[in-house]
């Protein structure tokens, strides 16, 4: 029983991260092969928000060559990221349902990532100028993703799952 319980706990988490990582690596290979973009030097130490309680709203705004990370677990979370300048990275991971993400990047060679695991989530990305990459991965059902890109850019949306509601949560 304990082993089964462990499997039940570990497998969904493992699958989620595998899907996330494979999606990101696919995105990178497409970006590199397709548009021959230069690699972005990422600095991760400037801001880090970790929020486990609900509901919580984050806002991060930076200039060039910065990274903004938001992790939210639970329902009814909202994440807002605004980055102005070059070579920024915005990343939001939300675990739960009825969450909301807004990402805005203005400048060249920016990257925006959203990973949402759950149902009824919404993610929007706005990127202006050239060589930007926007990626939204949504696992669950009845999600909505919106990307607006002005300039030569790469857009990737992966929506996975047509699950149904059960008494214990969601199944995929």
């Amino acid at each position, binding site marked *: 029983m304990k082993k089964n319980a462990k499997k039940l706990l570990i497998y969904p988490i493992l699958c989620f991260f595998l899907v996330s990582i494979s999606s990101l690596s696919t995105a990178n290979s497409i970006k590199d092969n397709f548009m021959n973009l230069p690699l972005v030097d990422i600095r991760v130490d400037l801001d880090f928000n970790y929020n486990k309680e609900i509901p919580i709203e984050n806002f991060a705004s930076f200039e060039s060559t910065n990274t903004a990370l938001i992790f939210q677990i639970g329902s009814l979370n909202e994440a807002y990221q605004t980055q102005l300048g070059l070579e920024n990275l915005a990343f939001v991971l939300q675990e739960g349902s009825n969450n909301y993400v807004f990402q805005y990047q203005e400048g060249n060679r920016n990257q925006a990532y959203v990973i949402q695991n759950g149902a009824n989530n919404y993610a929007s990305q706005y990127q202006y100028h050239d060589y930007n990459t926007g990626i939204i991965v949504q696992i669950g059902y009845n999600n909505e993703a919106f990307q607006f890109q*002005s300039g*030569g850019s790469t857009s990737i*949306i992966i929506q996975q799952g047509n699950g149904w509601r059960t008494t214990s949560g969601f199944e995929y």
Partner: protein
Amino acid sequence: MVGGQPQVLSIKFGEKMKAQILGIILLMVLPLKAENFPAELNLYLERENSLLKVYLTCYNPTLETLDFKVSLKIIKKGPSGTSNVLQSKRIILSPKEKIKPMLGLLKIGPEDFYTIEVKVWNKERRLILEKTICSENER
């Protein structure tokens, strides 16, 4: 005998992979032609398993610089949700230059319905081309 096994396996694996790659990639090229517009635009739809890759190629066959604007809109609806991609770019093409200005990639399931819309505006910002493609399972 032991040393020979991996070689046999790798050959089989390679053959299988080749067959799969040939079998699962579906490529469709749609030429986009507009009157009095010299640039050669092609819309590529590449389907690999459940991934749909949509991109444009633009080529300037003339000896003059071309200035125009292109937009690509992809909407997907299905049980997993709705995806909206809206991309636009002003393009200035040098003579004989070829570019791939934008790329959209979506995961498409068997129950999903999607539309792809391409619009082209000329230098005077007048709409000169509009093309819409819908998936087979239109609702």
